[in-house]
């Protein structure tokens, strides 16, 4: 019993080290792989400020005519 417990502890420790060291994952399908990659890919932080600066130099976008808002 003690031996089994010790063996299990060694296995668990090994899995933890492997997970912490390499961060490996298994995926079921192509889109799941792509989704995981997208989640860890962020646009550059400077992009929002750059866009804001560009927009500040633009005239305000024309608002939609009232008749189109009502009748599409």
């Amino acid at each position, binding site marked *: 019993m003690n031996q089994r417990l010790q063996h299990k502890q060694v296995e668990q420790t090994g899995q933890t080290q492997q997970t912490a060291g*390499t*961060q*490996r*994952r*298994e*995926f*079921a*399908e*192509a*889109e*799941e*792989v*792509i*989704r*995981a*990659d*997208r989640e*860890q*890919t*962020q*646009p*550059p932080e400077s*992009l*929002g400020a*750059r*866009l*804001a600066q*560009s*927009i*500040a130099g*633009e005239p305000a*976008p*024309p*608002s*939609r005519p009232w008749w*189109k808002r009502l009748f*599409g």
Partner: protein
Amino acid sequence: MPVDFAAVYEAHSQQIFYLALRLLGDPTQAEDATHDVFMKAWRHLGGFRGEADVRTWLYRITLNHCSNLRSSWHARNVHTQPDDTVFENLAGPTDSPFRDVEMSELGRRIQGALAELPEEYRVLLLLVADQELSYEQIAQLTQQSTDAVRGKLHRARKAFGNVFRKTA
């Protein structure tokens, strides 16, 4: 940036940047493309009629923008057409190519695999990875029927798995 448009940017910039990154394969070009996509959206905000949701509208602008960039690049640099059947008929090993994937290498491997695929497959896989898009919306974005999308996605997944395995 006006508050409403800032919210649009916050909600969708990651997806738009990622789509541009994987279509163009270059972070600097993707950053420029994302900037240009949101500028086009800003300029045409008054004409946005709400028939499609904002995400789909932004995706349409991104696909057109990246397609224009890529076609001008291809016109200068690429003179051959890849044979789609090569990817579909590859008989790979039966075990999953997505087992034991090192996360820090994921971007490099995906970019490498997508680069091997025909553009149509690349676009379909990137769009279907967004769970907010329905097959109908993907069909509209890629200008084909939903049946065609389903059929091509089946082949695209298979082709992606085959080339992804080789990137390890």
